[in-house]
């Protein structure tokens, strides 16, 4: 049953236009965009009524770009310029990509993230993903009748910092205001939990085209709490297709195929795999480029034998997440199946055997993530009144640490810690008179630095010369609600402070983003300045409304002079908003933001005091 929104009779704020917010599932194979209309989440179709957009981008000579079905049609004849499964390349270096070794593209080694050489020039996976997101943004803007206030974009829960940062950059490049990066299994749990009013411990088993996630959540009265998550960021339906393709080549006695044949064969393999969800055996037919025809019959039994180890590989993360949550399979009330690859019979069977109960398949595995993201976007945009919204408490999937002597990892934030989180740790110098310190941040579960993913390296300079062990360097790790890390460090002995903020090495710089925006095709058509002005206005209006609401609610926390200063800066912003000077609007908004900081902190303290006071009273009632 769908949830209907019913307004409170005495709602003080009165009726107002809901803000246009969407949820986007940026998938390995398909992507889609959804929104909440009159309280009901629904996916938005293209002009031909199709909801799914194949995550395929084709670059044309002369700078044109095709996205989706149009590009898909040319996968077989233009494989090097037709990029599929780009999600697998996000935040990945050439080494990682070479290891999986099956994509037909011309890879270009680049610091941090691999790039692709196409007929339209060298493209980063971030740019390719941005093309997909841009099509979805335009689709949503057309359906909703105006620019979007923001989007929730989903990522695999097991994505590391590099992959999350890349996804966020892609959304920015596509002109989207990202309200939140939301973990895919968490989005699915929101959709399932609200639809079924589920309470208790549930698990989400999400096997997509290229990624596998497993999350355990506790669902209770308006709170979705992730207890633990685990997965494999390089395991998905694609791997099953490849197994079939290799089998077919071996059967036909063919060697390594040319790029065009490889892609055609994989497509034929995928179609055969999908048919095997319904049939016991199916023909696998593929026209090769030289006119030969490859024809075989694949039985489900053979398919399951070829891919049994891939199914087994999903169960290790399942066991680990349960152990991290301190639970056994019997504690789980239901396992929600998400992702097209969960349609495979042996995947269903393995999950049923492991948990001793039939998995839950009542939601469309292709759409549930986008629908959950749309529901969350609706809440974040403030379209649901307080009391009718809910809270998501998510975790960090992989431990964060730094390199210590001997190439070992010192864990700073353990996996499955609730986010956002911040943790400070103190370090000291190794030698007398040492004035600089090198800090290497890594992510992963292994003891050796070499086995973890390197996130950032930075040097802290200007430490006053002191005997070994006397300096006090405080390094602070902060993970925000998107699961993104920032690190800062400072030396605090002898009153000298040095501090540095870290932007991870794989992330795009501001100038990269600007260059890509200039390069993008759409940008030539759009008036960039008009867009910047519109954005500054929206942001400024939002800020003014938020500060006014804060003063109305908690004005008692302000001294008379503080209040007068805020009113003055509000008036200043109001005066700038109707003008055409983008920089002036931004300056006025910044000034108001800075001045309202102490007020914001006091309001937060007061909110916590109220929450705890309310809790004590509630506890007395029990």
């Amino acid at each position, binding site marked *: 049953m769908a949830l209907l929104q019913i307004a409170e009779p005495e709602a003080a704020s009165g009726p107002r236009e809901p803000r246009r917010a969407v949820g986007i599932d940026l998938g390995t194979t398909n992507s889609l965009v959804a929104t909440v209309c009159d309280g009901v989440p629904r996916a938005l179709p293209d002009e031909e009524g199709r909801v799914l957009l194949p995550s395929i981008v084709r670059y044309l000579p002369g700078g044109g770009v095709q996205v989706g079905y149009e590009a898909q049609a040319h996968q077989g004849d233009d494989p090097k310029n037709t990029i599929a499964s780009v999600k697998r390349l996000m935040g990945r270096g050439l080494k990682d990509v070479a290891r999986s070794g099956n994509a037909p593209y011309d890879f270009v080694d680049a610091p941090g993230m691999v790039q692709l050489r196409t007929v339209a020039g060298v493209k980063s996976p971030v740019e390719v993903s941005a093309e997909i997101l841009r099509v979805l943004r335009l689709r949503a803007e057309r359906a909703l009748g105006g620019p979007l206030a923001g989007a929730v974009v989903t990522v695999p829960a097991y994505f590391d910092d590099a992959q999350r940062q890349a996804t966020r950059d892609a959304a920015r490049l596509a002109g989207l205001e990202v309200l939140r990066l939301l973990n895919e299994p968490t989005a699915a749990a929101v959709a399932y939990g609200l639809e079924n009013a589920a309470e208790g411990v549930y698990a989400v088993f999400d096997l997509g085209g290229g990624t596998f996630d497993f999350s355990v959540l506790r669902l209770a009265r308006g709170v979705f709490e992730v207890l633990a998550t685990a997965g494999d960021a390089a395991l998905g339906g694609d791997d099953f297709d490849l197994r079939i393709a290799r089998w077919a080549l071996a059967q036909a006695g063919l060697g390594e195929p040319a790029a065009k044949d490889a892609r055609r064969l994989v497509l034929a393999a995928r179609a055969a795999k999908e048919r095997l969800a319904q049939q016991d055996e199916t023909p696998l037919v593929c026209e090769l480029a030289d006119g030969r025809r490859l024809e075989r019959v694949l039985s489900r039994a053979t398919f399951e034998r070829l891919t049994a180890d891939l199914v087994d590989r999903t169960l290790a993360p399942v066991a680990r997440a349960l152990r991290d949550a301190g639970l056994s399979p019997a504690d789980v009330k239901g396992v929600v199946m998400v992702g097209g690859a969960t349609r495979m019979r042996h995947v269903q069977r393995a999950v049923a055997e492991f948990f001793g109960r039939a998995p839950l398949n009542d939601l469309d595995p292709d759409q549930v993530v986008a629908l959950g993201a749309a529901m969350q976007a609706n809440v974040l945009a403030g379209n649901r009144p307080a009391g009718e919204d809910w*809270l998501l408490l998510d975790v960090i999937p992989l431990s964060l640490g730094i390199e210590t002597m001997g190439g070992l990892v010192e864990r700073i934030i353990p996996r499955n*810690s609730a986010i956002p989180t911040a943790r400070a740790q103190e370090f000291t110098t190794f030698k007398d008179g040492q004035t600089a310190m090198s800090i290497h941040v890594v992510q992963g579960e292994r003891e050796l630095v070499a086995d973890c993913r390197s996130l950032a390296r930075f040097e802290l300079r200007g430490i006053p010369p002191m005997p070994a062990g006397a300096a006090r360097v405080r390094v602070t790790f902060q993970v925000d609600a998107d699961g993104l890390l920032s690190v800062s460090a400072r030396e605090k002995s002898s009153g000298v402070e040095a501090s540095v903020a870290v932007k991870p090495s794989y992330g795009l710089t501001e100038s990269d983003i600007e260059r890509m925006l200039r390069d993008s095709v759409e940008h030539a058509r759009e008036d960039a300045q008009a867009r910047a002005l519109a954005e500054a206005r929206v942001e400024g209006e939002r800020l003014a409304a938020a500060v006014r609401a804060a003063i109305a609610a908690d004005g008692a926390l302000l001294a008379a002079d503080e209040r007068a200063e805020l009113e003055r800066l509000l008036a200043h912003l109001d005066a700038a908003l109707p003008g055409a000077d983008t920089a002036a609007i931004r300056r006025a908004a910044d000034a108001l*933001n800075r001045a309202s900081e102490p007020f914001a902190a006091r*309001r937060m303290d007061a909110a916590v005091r109220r929450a705890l006071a309310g809790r004590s009273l509630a*506890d007395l009632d029990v």
Partner: protein
Amino acid sequence: MSNHFELFGLAPKYALDAEALERAWRAVQASVHPDRYAAAGAAERRAALAWSARANEAYRMLKDPVERARHLLELAGVDPRFETDTAMPEAFLERQLELREALAEARAARDAARLAQLREEVLAAARAREAAIAERIDVARDYAGAAALVRELQFLRRLAQEIDDAHAPE
């Protein structure tokens, strides 16, 4: 230094009511989580992020039996000297060596039943330390005595972690 118990309105003691802690944590997050301020100005978003992160970190430390003890010792002004004082009773160290040998053997033999049994043994020893720490801190106020037990507990918890990792080779 900040008092994590105060943040959740709880009395500072080792034998903590886990459910009361969880209720308080949820109540605090319900009012400060950044999702609650997604439509607010930048100043409020920053304040929410800082508060929410602080509450999560405090929650994590209070839930962890070693970190909770360490925090109580620090609040009492006792330096637990975890990093420098590695002196341990001989009997404890001998038992640890035995357990580690048993773990290495079970791991080499891929003996899941033996691993599960070792895990239970180590966790039982850890639970016994936790009960003793609660008595030392909450009742006897013997912080130095508690610190020695906490160091043992830390040893046992690390061993339990290694057993878990042996279960699931990456």
